[in-house]
C-alpha cells in the first residue's frame, strides 16, 4: 500500500508542486494570553508565523519537544482553537474566515485522533453511541437500522469485535480504545485527520498494531494525515515528509528519508542523535550531541533564532536576526543562518 503511496508522491520540489495541495497554512499565529500580576497580560506565542502545505494523500509528520507547539498547530488548523492571525486554506477555502455556524461541513472533512484514549472517550457512552454520535451530527444515517449497520461496519473496519458495540470504554484495553477513537474519526468519511500522538500512550507491543490500522485506513479511505509525535522512530516509518518544530517555529521541513540522512538544522541533528537506538552495537558506540539546558519559556523567547541559547554553533548573527525559512534544494526547507555549512 505505502509503496503505492510513495509512487504517487514523488520526491523533489518540482514534482511536488504538481501535487494537489489539500491544506495550505499561511503565516499562522496562535497566541494565548496569560494574566500576569498587576493586571498586565502577557502572551504565549505557541505557534508563531508558520507556513507550509500538506499534499493530498500524504502523511506529514510534526516532531518536537513538549512546548514546541506541535499540538497547538494541529488544533489551530482544525479551528479547535481560533487562530490569532494567518490563514488555513482547506481545498481552496480559507477556513479561518468562516463563521462559526458555517463550519459544520468543514468539520465533516477533518477529524482529530487524540493522544490519550482514556481521556478522549466519554466513559458514560457506549461504543455505538460514541461512534454513532458522529453519524448523527452530520446526519449520515438514514434510519436506525442503517445507523446500526454503519456502526457495525466501522467497528469491523478498525478491527474491533462488533459484539462489543454496547460496551463502555472502561471495558477495553488502551489499544482497543484507540481503535474506537479511530472508528469515531473515520465515521464521517473525512479527508484529513490530525493524529496527535496516537500511539504514545500505548504499550510497545500494541503500537505496531495501531500504526498498521492507521495506514490501512489511509489506503482504503484515501486519507491525508498530519501526524504529530515526539517519537522519531514512529515518524520515520509513517511519514512522507516531516516538519521539526521548536518554540512555535518550524525549523526544518523535508522528506522523511532525507531528514534522517541529511539533517541541516542543528536542532534536528541533536534530536536525531538523542533517540535511543534499539541496537546495542550502534547505541554504545555513537557520539551523542547533548543539547545544553532546556526549551526556553515561550512567554519570553530568545531574540533572533529561538534555538540559539542551546545551539552549539550559535554566533552573533543568530542573536540579532531571525533566520529565514528557506529552501535548500529538493523541497528541503530550513530556518538556520548556517544551514548547509555546519
Amino acid at each position, binding site marked *: *500500500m*505505502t*509503496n503505492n*503511496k*510513495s509512487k504517487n508522491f514523488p520526491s523533489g520540489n518540482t514534482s511536488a508542486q504538481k501535487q494537489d495541495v489539500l491544506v495550505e497554512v499561511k503565516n499562522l499565529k496562535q497566541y494565548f494570553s496569560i494574566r500576569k500580576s498587576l493586571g498586565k497580560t502577557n502572551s504565549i506565542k505557541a505557534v508563531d508565523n508558520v507556513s507550509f502545505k500538506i499534499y493530498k494523500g500524504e502523511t506529514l509528520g510534526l516532531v518536537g*519537544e*513538549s512546548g514546541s507547539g506541535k499540538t497547538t498547530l494541529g488544533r489551530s488548523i482544525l479551528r479547535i482553537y481560533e487562530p490569532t492571525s494567518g490563514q488555513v486554506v482547506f481545498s481552496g477555502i480559507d477556513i479561518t474566515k468562516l463563521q462559526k455556524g458555517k463550519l459544520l461541513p468543514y468539520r465533516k472533512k477533518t477529524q482529530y485522533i487524540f493522544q490519550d484514549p482514556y481521556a478522549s472517550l466519554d466513559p458514560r457512552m457506549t461504543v455505538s453511541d460514541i461512534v454513532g454520535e458522529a453519524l448523527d451530527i452530520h446526519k449520515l444515517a438514514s434510519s436506525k437500522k442503517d445507523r446500526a449497520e454503519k456502526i457495525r461496519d466501522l467497528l469491523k473496519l478498525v478491527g474491533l469485535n462488533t459484539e462489543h458495540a454496547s460496551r463502555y470504554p472502561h471495558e477495553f*484495553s*488502551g*489499544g*482497543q480504545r484507540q481503535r474506537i477513537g479511530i472508528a469515531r474519526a473515520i465515521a464521517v468519511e473525512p479527508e484529513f485527520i490530525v493524529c496527535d500522538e496516537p500511539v504514545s500512550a500505548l*504499550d*510497545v*507491543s*500494541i*503500537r*505496531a*498494531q495501531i*500504526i*498498521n490500522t492507521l*495506514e490501512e485506513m489511509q489506503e482504503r479511505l484515501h486519507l491525508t494525515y498530519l501526524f504529530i509525535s*515526539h517519537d*522519531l*522512530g*514512529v515518524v*520515520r*516509518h*509513517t*511519514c*512522507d515528509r516531516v516538519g521539526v518544530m521548536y518554540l512555535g517555529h518550524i525549523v526544518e521541513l523535508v522528506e*522523511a*528519508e532525507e531528514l534522517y540522512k541529511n539533517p541541516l538544522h542543528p536542532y534536528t541533528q*541533536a*534530536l536525531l*542523535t*538523542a*533517540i*535511543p*537506538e*534499539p*541496537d*546495542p*552495537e*550502534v*547505541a*554504545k558506540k555513537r557520539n*551523542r550531541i*547533548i*543539547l545544553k539546558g*532546556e*526549551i526556553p519559556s515561550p512567554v519570553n523567547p530568545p531574540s533572533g533564532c529561538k534555538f540559539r541559547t542551546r545551539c552549539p554553533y550559535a554566533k552573533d548573527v543568530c542573536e540579532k536576526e531571525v533566520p529565514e525559512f528557506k529552501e535548500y534544494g529538493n523541497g528541503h526547507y530550513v530556518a538556520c543562518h548556517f544551514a548547509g555549512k555546519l
Partner: protein
Amino acid sequence: MIKELLKINDLKVSFFTPAGEVKAVNGVSYSLEPGKVLGIVGESGSGKSVSSYSIMGLIDKPGKIVGGSIVFDGKDVSTMTKAQRQNLAGNEVAMIFQDPMTCLNPVFTIGNQIAESLIHKYGKISKEEIKKRSIELMALVGINEPEKRLSQYPHEFSGGMRQRAMIAMALAGSPKLLIADEPTTALDVTIQAQILELLKDIQKKTGMAIILITHDLGIVADMADDVIVMYGGKIVEQGSVYNIFNAPQHPYTKGLIRSLPDLSKKGEKLIPIQGNPIDLLNLPQGCAFAPRCENCMKVCIKHMPEEYLTADGHRVSCWLYDSRANNSTEVKNND
C-alpha cells in the same frame, strides 16, 4: 567468581484485590553483580516495577511477597528487622522514579530534602557539612548554581532538573545499587539524553550497580550490560544485551524487536504482536504469552515452560527450546 550484589530467587508477589489474587510477580529469579547495569524490559503489568519494589520493601497492602528470597550483599532481606531494612533502603539501595514531581515534597526546599537523605545516612552531621555535601551532590548531577538552587522548591525546577535533584537525593547515601524506574519516560528526548548520559557518568565515577526498568528497548540497548525481558509476571528471557538484541530467542522478545518502527523502512508494513495485553486476574494455565504467540503449541497452553540455556549462554523460558520440540514446525498450530 565475582560475588553477587543482589540475588533474587523465585520471588512471588501478589496483590489481593476484591476481584481476586493478582499475581504481579510469579516466580522471578535473577542476580546482579556489583557495578553492572541490568535492564528490565516489559510492558505495563509485566511485573517489572513490582519485582524491584520488593527489594526496597515498597510493597504495600493489598500486595504481599508470598514466596521466594531476596539476598542483598549477602544478607537476606526478608529476615531483616525494620531498622535494618530502613538502613538498606536509602543507604545501600536507592531508587529514582518516573515522575519526579510526585516523589519530591512540594512544601520543602530541594536542600531540605537532600539534607534528609544525608541525615538518614550519617546520623549526626553538622549543618556546614550538610551544606557542603549537598552542594557537591548538586554539582555532581549537573545542576548549575547549586547554592542558590538548594533553597528553591520543587515547582521552581523543570522536569529534567527535578529528575537531577532526585538523583542527587538518591546518591546522598552512596548506594551500592540504584533502581531507576522509567527514569526518563516523562521527559523529552533531548532531556532524556542528558539524564542517560548523567547516569552513565555517575555510574563510571561511583561504580554502583543500576537496575534500569523501562519499556524502551532503545534505552536498554544504550545503557544495559544484561537484559531481562518480563511478561505476565515472569522472566521470559535473560541474557547479555548483545545476545538479546542480536539473537532474541523467545517469541515475545522477537516480536517486540521486530515490531519496532525504527528498523523497518517506510512502506514496509510493521509486524505487530497480535492480541491484547495480558489480564493478570485471569492468567493462562500455561505460558502467559501463549494466547498471543505465533509458535504456540499444545503444551504451551497447559504447562508452564521451564528455563532453557541456549547455545550462546542466555536463558529463555519457552517450550520451543525443549528437546522434544525439535520438529516445532510440525507441532505448531496443530490445534
